[in-house]
């Protein structure tokens, strides 16, 4: 077990900058998740830590040791690859035992460790099989088993669940979390799926185009995103964004736009008077307005699409050119084409600079 530090790490492929100035301190026993859209440099960051990719500049430390020029085999890490990367010619037992054999553990020791890992993962009955005789979920377990028998300093996982079907993914997610609570090994987990990130990470690193956008706990990311990208990436369905202008009126500050939108905020935003900003509100912070009298922070909208998910309902509504998603508990009360009033929670809103995308609420 160990800490991991990235210090000003950059990576270029040719003249394409894939990772830009990555700085990250990962604590011992932490479960940290790198999340971001495809191609943002998550795998590259992980592979640099594993030693499978050279570092263009900067330093990577595992514990107190600088590992920039260390071979992968000397770094004492274990990695779970997206496509499992099992050895196709070896059976499950040998796949899991390989790393131990290379480290010259005794045969009885290897057998004990492999059997222990197999029991944890529920694959004892598969030890004689070749990878091609296993289902996707079973292969995934073997790949994880191969990583945990080694008892490495750090686990690296690169989208380990992305090849599984939705149900199995949810199940494995919980199992991985349990496994981490048990083993307590520092774990760096890469995914493009914000749900996985939110449910598994102690802390989450949100990346975009090779640049870290925010490093924070799941609730902090959800409640106070640094910028419009993080706000839109975290949460499902995604946050609604409405372009508007800041207007001072009777000593109060409103956000308004041409579609007739008007929202009273308790923040003065003095510097932004008459300037363009982006207003954000999450689908779950919108409710029905049952009263007929017009009020602050209410909006009349038309229902475009109704998605009934059983426990909750997603309503896709619009006013003017603006579309908004709302999320209500229970069965739908309205049908397509209805005009309804929605109330926007007056306390749970986000405002971003139109130019930089940075949050204005910090």
């Amino acid at each position: 077990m160990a800490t991991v530090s990235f210090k000003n790490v950059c990576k270029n492929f040719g003249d394409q900058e894939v990772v830009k100035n990555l700085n990250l301190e990962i604590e011992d026993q932490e479960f940290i998740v790198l999340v971001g859209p495809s191609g943002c440099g998550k795998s590259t960051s992980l592979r640099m830590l594993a030693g499978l990719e050279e570092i263009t500049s900067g330093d990577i430390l595992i514990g107190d040791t600088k590992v920039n020029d260390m071979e992968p085999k000397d770094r004492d890490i274990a990695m779970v690859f997206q496509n499992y990367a099992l050895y196709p010619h070896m059976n499950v037992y040998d796949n899991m035992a390989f790393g131990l054999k290379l480290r010259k553990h005794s045969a009885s020791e290897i057998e004990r460790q492999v059997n222990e890992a197999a029991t944890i993962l529920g694959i004892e009955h598969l030890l004689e099989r070749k990878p091609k005789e296993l289902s996707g979920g079973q292969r995934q377990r073997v790949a994880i088993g191969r990583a945990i028998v080694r008892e490495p300093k750090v686990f690296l996982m690169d989208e380990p669940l992305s090849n599984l079907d939705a149900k199995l993914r949810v199940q494995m997610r919980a199992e991985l979390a349990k496994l981490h609570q048990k083993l307590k090994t520092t774990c760096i987990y890469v995914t493009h799926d914000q749900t996985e990130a939110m449910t598994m990470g102690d802390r989450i690193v949100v990346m975009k185009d090779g640049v870290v956008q925010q490093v924070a706990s799941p609730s902090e990311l959800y409640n106070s995103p640094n910028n419009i990208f993080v706000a839109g990436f975290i949460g499902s369905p995604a946050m609604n964004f409405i372009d508007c202008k800041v207007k001072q009126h009777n000593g109060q500050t409103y956000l308004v736009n041409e579609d007739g939108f008007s929202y009273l905020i308790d923040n003065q935003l003095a510097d932004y008077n008459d300037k363009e900003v982006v207003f954000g509100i999450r689908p779950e912070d919108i409710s029905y307005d049952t009263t007929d009298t017009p009020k602050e922070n209410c909006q009349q909208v038309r229902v475009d699409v109704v998605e009934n998910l059983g426990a909750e309902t997603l309503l896709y509504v619009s006013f003017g050119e603006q579309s908004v998603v709302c999320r209500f508990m229970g069965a739908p009360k309205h049908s397509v084409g209805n005009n309804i009033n929605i109330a926007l929670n007056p306390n749970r809103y986000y405002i971003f600079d139109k130019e930089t995308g940075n949050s204005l609420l910090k």
Partner: protein
Amino acid sequence: MSTGKSLEAPAQQQPQPSGSPKAGGRFKRLLTTENLMLAPAITVLASITIFPFLYLIYASLMDFALAMDDPTFAGLRNWVRLFKDPAIAQSWKVTLIYAVVGLGLEVIIGVGVALLLYATPWGRNIFVTLWMLPIFVAPVVAGLLGWFMLNSSYGLYAWVLQLVGINTDIFGNVATALPAVILIDVWEWTPLITLIVLSGLQSLPSEPLEAAEVDGASYWQKLRYVILPLSARIIVVAMLIRSMDIMRFIDTIFITTAGGPADSTKIIGLRLFEVAFRFMDIGYAAAIGLSMLFVTILLGQAFVKVMYGR
């Protein structure tokens, strides 16, 4: 189309219980469009492989020695001779040495160079092209080249050998002729092994190799436990291609030693050539040819078993 078929089907089914028109129905089924379209290809295939093969069996049972155009029936005489002839045994022995030593060297060097090229990050293409050059040389020319280089009066290599005290006519000495023709074969065909194995290596999945590195494998351990097992099949394919080739190979040896001295380089292909075209003993040659075919098939089977067995 579909209506025609649905009308036809009951018509075919009805007479079946009566029994007799069954053969006619089967013949009709043979004349389906797809079979008719296959017919030309089958005819060509038959005329270029099956008929010659049948003729070879016929010829091996005949005696052509007295008159080429009027063979007489010989029964199994050619076949009995085949198994008793010490010259044939000698040729098989030479062929075996040629194949095992030659192919052994070719595989070791060829795979070694393929692994080197596989690990080379730059200049791979240039080096591959240079390394491949001997393949593009016709075997006859390769033989001539070897003959010039090793000729005792003006050969470059022979001269070098003389400088270190080896003073002999390389193709004229029983001890050196076979090694010399084997080395020419190695020179010419090792690159083919490299080419096949390199293409196999380049199509290996990268993830298991990376997994092995992370698991703690050094280069040699990675080679021993992952790369070689994963490319074993392609190496066997290369060996299969080359061993079948060697079985019917004559060009280079024909040019350099013509099988001599004292039959020390007379591999089975060359022996067949000699029996057929110098002694004009077509019946015996046919028997030799069929025996070679038989061995080749057995060899192929063995390799396929190694590849897919277990």
